[in-house]
């Protein structure tokens, strides 16, 4: 973990992400999915469903949720938690939008049980 990772990294502009869609940030540690909701809220999660590792960036975004394309788990974009009765968590990354510029920190938030939230 180098010092760069703590910084807010400029990753692109809001309009680069389709509304109700997602884009991927490819990193050495794996992909991060950056989502944009219908209301232009932006969220970032590790691009792995806690269920079977499906790429969440490929799912349909609705409300503040994304449906995993593999087995339809619903993951909350703001918490990374799977909707009950499923249980699991995709790590959240701090993200913010200022003047249309999307910035991200590469260190995931605390709060996901089990670090990156893979269920066993």
């Amino acid at each position, binding site marked *: 973990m180098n010092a760069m990772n703590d910084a807010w990294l400029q990753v692109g502009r809001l309009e680069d992400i389709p509304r*109700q869609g997602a884009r*991927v940030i490819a990193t050495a540690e794996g992909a991060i999915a950056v989502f944009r909701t219908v209301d232009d809220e932006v969220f970032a999660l590790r691009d792995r469903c806690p269920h079977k590792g499906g790429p969440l960036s490929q799912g349909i975004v609705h409300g503040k949720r994304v449906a995993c394309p593999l087995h339809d788990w619903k993951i909350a974009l703001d918490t990374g938690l799977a909707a009950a009765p499923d249980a699991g968590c995709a790590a959240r990354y701090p993200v913010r939008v200022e003047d249309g510029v999307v910035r991200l920190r590469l260190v995931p938030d605390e709060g996901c049980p089990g670090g990156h939230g893979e269920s066993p």
Partner: protein
Amino acid sequence: MDKMKLVLVGNGMAGMRTLEELLRIAPELYEITVIGAEPHPNYNRILLSPVLAGEQTLDEIVLNPLQWYAEHGIRLVTGSPVVRIDRARRCVETADGARADYDRLLLATGSDPFILPVPGAELPGVVGFRDIADVEAMIDASDRYRHAVVIGGGLLGLEAANGLKLRGMEVTVVHLAPWLMERQLDEPAARLLQQNLEAKGLRFLLQRQTAALLPSPSPAGGGGVGERVSVASGIPSPPALHAREGPLPLAGEGSEPRVGAVRFTDGSEVPADLVVMAVGIRPNVALAESAGLHCNRGVVVNDTLQTYDPRIYAVGECASHRGVAYGLVAPLFEQARVAANHLALQGFKRYAGSVTSTKLKVTGIDLYSAGDFTGGEGSEAIVYSDPIAGVYKKLVVKDDRLVGACLYGDTLEGTWYFELLRDGTSIRDFRDKLLFGRHHLGDSGHGDEKARLAALPDATEICGCNGVKKGDIVRAIREQRLFTLDEVRAHTKASASCGSCTGLVEGLLAMTAGGDYSEAPSKKPVCACTEHSHDEVRRAIREQGLKALPDAMRFLEWKTPDGCNKCRPALNYYLLCAWPNEYQDDAQSRYINERAHGNIQKDGSFSVVPRMWGGLTNPKELRAIADVAEKFGVPEVKVTGGQRIDLFGVKKEDLPAVWRDLSEAGFVSGHAYGKALRTVKTCVGARWCRFGTRDSTGLGVKLERMTWGSWMPHKYKLAVSGCPRNCAEATIKDFGVVCVDSGYELHVGGNGGIKVRVTDLLAKVDTEEEVLEYCAAFTQLYREEARYLERSAPWIERVGLSYVKARILADAEGRRALAERFRASQQTAQVDPWKARADGAETHEFTPMLTLA
């Protein structure tokens, strides 16, 4: 602002279901008080029978534990009935003197068992079968006494008798009618039932009318004679008719003697230490009547479950709707949904009455009854009877509609019959198969029609997609207290993928949860985002000229801001189908496969299937595919079931480049990923085959050229066989052509896969031009009228082959118009999505936003 106050009188299933629905849609609207006469939280009354039978415990049947009330901020008052409603002051008062004010009052006072007004009915040891106290009294009696008499051979009486027998009592069932359950069963079925129950040790006395309940001879040393005379006044003091075999009643059980025998109008008597009255229920309307509410065999309510006082609603067994008071749980839950909708001030749902069905909850006995099984004028009965195997089925048909079903010994198809009955489906096209059922037994791997759901071992896999076993489902239903198919899907994943085991899961739900309230409502909303059905949504899109997804959601009052992954793809398809040349496709409302034009695989890579017209290819094409496979390091190349070549493991970011190379070799997308025209499979045909009658390959190419690129409600496959040997398997395709010497047979509505369905023969035509026109017309009819994700096979079963024939064969002008609409929509659909993306469209879909080394 203060919240409005809602008071629920009656802490039972109907009232509490209404509250749950209300809390779901308007959680903050009311300050809620629940007042129940029983000293328990809400429990599943239907499961009292399994509790009595010792198959479940009281704890297991609690639906809303005390904690639930606390969590939802509900004030719960138990153990004290409401005795007064002051409608002027808008408050209620309990027997203890507690008061609660209301802005809205919900009455769910249920019903009371009807106690025969015979002398001795008030003796100790005479109970109904209605609540936990009754069950406790029955269990207590079974520990200490021997002889039980159940008066009433209906559903409840038989369940009580079975339970008492299992608890070791000698049980006699007394019934007035000539056969058991005469309101649900005809005589042959009832006889089978009786034999079965007799084999379990129950005794039956039919056509006996109870004249009196007699007190037992006074216990030794007891001073009960006086009481006996007083309670049994008017009845001659009974001589000691029978020697008691069981233990004597314990002294100190009250000063009155206990019931000791039942006497009939013919003068005969049977010993009885316990008498269960199960002759019927009566809506409990005393409270409503005392408050001056209009009652007529129930508290009279309108279609919004409102009583004559607009602030007061009534649901459940106490309510009388259009002259009917329901005693089964499915209708009560339908009422609950409507009442909650109005209490939540949404005000658009109406209750129009229910069709009910009955299932007996006696382990080892399969019995199902729905609708009017007696028939009557103009009706016909279809009967199957196998007394040795103990199977009897009677279906009553009137005007091509199923109006009643009575099943004994094999009830697996009960839910299907109930759907047909409730939906009024025309059975004309499959009348000959009706009795033998839908064979709806999950996927073909275990499609044994003889299998008995109840007899399946717990380890049996029910859901083949998600590997869910029967035991898992049953446990989840019990432990998580699941009521609906959707809940079972969410908790177990059973039936959540391909859906072929839905019938089995519904059966397990009915069996385990004890009632039939798992049945899907006849009008199924598209998803939880809306109240509207698929058909309503489509109609609105057409009639209101809705041409964009947000417009459609706004007009139809969608409950979520932007839908979900169920409704958005459906809406997108409906809009596309309705306005083919105007609608702007919404990529974000498409499943990833259709958005990325490849099939997503479990590792996130994609598979690529280039189109090969009619399955024909050539060395140049094969070389191009080989080059692509090598250039992009494709890990696996496979031939598909539809005669195409599949390249597996292509990385998403490589897709546009792969497509560019394929496109340059002349390929277009094979749409192997979409709810779309997939492939046209062909056999060799007359050019080479010594049996071939016609050029099946050439016709296949023409059909594929005509239909490729079209979006469909579901995947859609064609095939052309050159002779009746049918090597292209055209009779399990959505549209199949079988060439014969004299022309072309057109077959529709087949599919392989989950549940194999062989096509129906639609027509025989003479020329290739006709084949193309009929194919275009049939395809367009399916596109315009099937629901999203409904394949042609279930669609045809739903609408009937006669309907399709009427539209395609009988109406030549309509057929040509359908074919024309199909061709018109194809003009904009036949744009190769691969080439477009290879040329730079939708780049963002295939490239990372940013790549960090």
